[in-house]
C-alpha cells in the first residue's frame, strides 16, 4: 500500500553529501559567528546579501544543468542543504520560492529564452521570484482564478488581482496563473502561466500586514499589464497541468516539518541536563516523531532522486510516491505545532517578540505563524481529500 520497492535499510547518504553537510554547517557557523543574520522563526526572512553568499557557494539551483548556472548535483544534496538551512533558521526567503518551485517549473516547461534569462540569475542569488496563485475569490479552489490575459500583438495584456503574494515587494518577477480563454465547461482548461516582471507598467504592489504587524504578504494589482509572448511558461492553456505537477520531491522535503525545529533545540537547552520525567517524555516523543518523519522524507528523496536535472527538467523514475509525499506534508505541518505546545507547556513563559530571550522570542514567532503552514500551498482539508481519493481509488 505504501513505499512499494523503497529500501529503508539503505538511506545512508553518499560521502559527497556528508562532506557537503559539513561544509554547510561550517558556512552557517561562520555566518552566525560574524553576526550576519539573526535567526527568526515563523516568517522566513528575506536577506538578499545572505542569498548571494549562499549562491556563491553553489547552493542555489544546485541540481540544475551547468549551462543554466546549476551545479548538476543530485537532489539528495539539495535535501541536505535545505535541512541544514532550516536547522539554523537561516534567512532564505529571497531564494526559496525560485529554488524549489519557479526554477524547476522553468526547467520543465520554460522556453530556452526563459531558462537563459532567469535560471542563471536565480542561481547567482540576484533574481528573486514570488508566486501569483491565490486571488480574493480563489484560495483552495485555484482553478477559479479570474485574472485574465487577452491576446494582443506580440503578447498578452493581463488584468486582475493576486493576494497573499509573499515578498512581491522585494522580488523581481512572479509566476501568474491566469485565464487565457473563458471557462467553457472544463474549468481546468484555458489556464496559463506567465512570468510577470513586478516593475512592469500597470503592476501595483500593496502590503497586507500580518497580524503581528510584519510585512511579507502583498496584494498585487495587474492593470492591463503587457507580457510579451516570450514570457509565457510552457503552453497556453496548459497552466493547470503545469501548476499541479508539483512533484513528490518538492512536496515532501524538510520545509514541511522543520520550520519550528530551532524552537525545539532552544527548549532542550532551557530544560537542562536532567529535567523532570514529564519533560523527558515530551522531548523523547518529539525526538521520535521528528526522526520518523525525517526517515519518511529521506526515503522518498532517496527513492526518487533522479540525480542531477537534465536540460529539460528532471527525469524521474517511475516510482509513484505521490501519496506518501502528500502525507509527509500533512503530518509535518502538524508536527511543527507539537513543538510549539511542548515549549509553552513545559516552560513557564509568556511569548514575547520583544525579548532578548531566544526561547521566548521563538515561541512568540511560531505561535502567531502556526496557522499558516496548514493553509499555504493547499489547506490540510483539501490535501486530505486528495490523499483519501488516492487511497480509495476511483470510488463512484
Amino acid at each position, binding site marked *: 500500500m505504501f513505499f512499494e520497492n523503497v529500501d529503508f535499510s539503505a538511506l545512508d547518504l553518499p560521502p559527497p553529501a556528508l562532506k557537503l553537510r559539513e561544509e554547510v554547517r561550517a558556512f552557517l557557523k561562520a555566518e552566525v559567528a560574524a553576526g550576519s543574520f539573526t535567526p527568526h522563526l515563523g516568517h522566513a526572512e528575506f536577506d538578499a546579501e545572505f542569498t548571494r553568499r549562499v549562491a556563491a557557494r553553489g547552493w542555489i539551483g544546485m541540481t540544475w544543468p551547468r549551462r543554466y548556472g546549476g551545479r548538476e548535483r543530485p537532489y539528495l544534496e539539495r535535501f541536505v542543504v535545505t535541512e541544514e538551512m532550516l536547522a539554523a533558521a537561516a534567512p532564505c526567503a529571497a531564494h526559496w520560492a525560485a529554488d524549489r518551485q519557479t526554477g524547476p517549473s522553468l526547467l520543465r516547461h520554460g522556453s530556452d529564452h526563459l531558462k537563459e534569462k532567469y535560471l542563471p540569475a536565480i542561481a547567482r542569488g540576484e533574481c528573486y521570484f514570488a508566486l501569483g496563485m491565490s486571488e480574493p475569490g480563489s484560495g483552495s479552489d485555484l482553478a477559479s482564478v479570474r485574472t485574465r490575459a487577452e491576446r494582443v500583438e506580440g503578447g498578452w495584456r493581463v488584468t486582475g488581482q493576486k493576494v497573499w503574494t509573499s515578498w512581491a515587494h522585494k522580488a523581481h518577477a512572479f509566476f501568474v496563473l491566469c485565464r487565457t480563454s473563458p471557462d467553457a465547461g472544463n474549468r481546468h482548461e484555458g489556464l496559463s502561466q506567465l512570468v510577470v516582471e513586478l516593475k512592469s507598467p500597470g503592476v501595483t504592489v500593496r502590503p497586507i500586514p500580518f497580524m503581528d504587524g510584519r510585512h511579507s504578504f502583498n496584494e498585487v494589482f495587474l492593470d492591463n499589464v503587457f507580457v510579451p509572448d516570450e514570457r509565457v511558461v510552457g503552453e497556453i492553456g496548459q497552466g493547470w497541468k503545469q501548476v499541479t505537477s508539483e512533484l513528490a520531491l518538492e512536496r515532501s522535503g524538510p520545509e514541511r516539518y522543520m520550520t519550528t525545529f530551532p524552537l525545539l533545540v532552544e527548549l*532542550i537547552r532551557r530544560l537542562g541536563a536532567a529535567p523532570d520525567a514529564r519533560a523527558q517524555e515530551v522531548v523523547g*516523543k518529539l*525526538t521520535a516523531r521528528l*526522526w520518523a518523519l525525517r*526517515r*519518511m522524507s529521506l*526515503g522518498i528523496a532517496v527513492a526518487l532522486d533522479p540525480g542531477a536535472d537534465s536540460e529539460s527538467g528532471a527525469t524521474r523514475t517511475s516510482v509513484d510516491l505521490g501519496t506518501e509525499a502528500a502525507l509527509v506534508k500533512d503530518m509535518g505541518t502538524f508536527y511543527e505545532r507539537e513543538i510549539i505546545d511542548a515549549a509553552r507547556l513545559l516552560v513557564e513563559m509568556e511569548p514575547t517578540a520583544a525579548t532578548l530571550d531566544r526561547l521566548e522570542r521563538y515561541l512568540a514567532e511560531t505561535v502567531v505563524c502556526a496557522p499558516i503552514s496548514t493553509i499555504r500551498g493547499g489547506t490540510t482539508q483539501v490535501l486530505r481529500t486528495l490523499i483519501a481519493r488516492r487511497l480509495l481509488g476511483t470510488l463512484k
Partner: protein
Amino acid sequence: MTALNDVRLMLIESATRLFADHVDDKLLAAAKRDGWSASLWQELERAELPLVSIPEEAGGAGGALSDAAAVLRIAGRYTAPVPLAETGVLAAWMLAASGIAIPGGALAAGPARDADHVTAGHNGGRWELSGTFARVPWARVASRLVLLAEGPDGLIVACVDPGRCRITPGANLAGEPRDDVVLDRVVAEAAAPAGPGVDRETLKLRGALARSLMMAGALERSLELSVQYAQQRAQFGRKIGQFQAIQQELARFGGETAVAIAAALSAAGVMERGGDALLAVASAKIRTADAAREGALIAHQVHGAIGVTNEYALHHATLRLWAWREEFGNEAQWAMRLGARTQQHGPDPFWSDLTAA
C-alpha cells in the same frame, strides 16, 4: 534511485504469498482456541522463513536483519499467529551469536520484561537455571525456551525444555500466549557465555524492533480493510467513502500507517549497520505505538458496529495493535529514555545526532 534488491523482493513476494494462502478466518479462529497455528508454522519452516537473518553457518537461512524485518512486517499484516519474531531475531540470534546449535521448532525467548531475571549456576558440568518470568511470549507452544541468564561470571545463553518449567498459561488481548514461567534449577540442554553483542539491552531493542515492524504490518491490514469497507458500505444513499468526513479520517490513518512503515523499516536498517540503535528503535516503537492508537480507533470508527464483532476480520489486527504496543516497552517508557538521553547530550549535538548515519 535505491530500490530493493532482487533477493529481498523475491523474499517479500514469496512470504506474502505464503501468508495470503494460509492465514484465513478459519486458521485465525482455530489459533484463538489453540494459542497458535502449528500448521502455519510448518509451512513457514518449510519456506525457511523463521531463521531469516541468522547466518547459514549457524544453521540459519542467511540474509540481513532488514530481510527479517520485511518478513515480520508481512507477518504483522496477516496477523500470523506464530512466534516468528521470537524464534528468529530473538532466540536464534542469541544462540547463533553464542555458538549454540539452533534446535528445530518454534522458540520462545526471554526475559522479555525489565523486571524479570533468571540466574544460571554451574552444577557438576551442567548449567542450572532458576527464575520467574511473567508473560513470556509463546512459552507454552515453543519447543525450547532460549534464555539470557545471569551466571557467576557474566551472561549465559541457555536453551531449556519448557516441559521442565512450571508454565501458567496467559494470553494477550489477541489471544497470543503470554505465559508465566517458573524455573527451579532447570538443567539447560545447552548453554554458553553470551556471544558478542548479546545483552539485555540489545534483546529488548530487538524485541521492540520486532513489535514495531509487526505493528506497521497490522496497521496496513487495518487500513486496507477500512478502505475496502468505505468503498462498499452505503449509508444515506452513498458509499461512505464519498463523505468528506470519512475521507479526512482515512487520510489521517494513511499518514499514521505510512510513517509507521518508514520508522520500523528504517530502524531495522540502522540496527543492521550498527548505527544509533537506541535512537532508531525507541523512535520506531514510540511512533508505531502512537500510530497504533490513532489507526486502530479510526479503523473501528470507519467500520461502525460490524468492526467490533468476533466474526469480522478487523479485530485480529486491532487487538494485536493494542497488545503489541505495550510489549518490550510502551511509548511512554521509550520516550522517557530517549528524552533523558537527548537532555543529557544537550541542545548542540541534537541535530547532528539526528542526522548521523
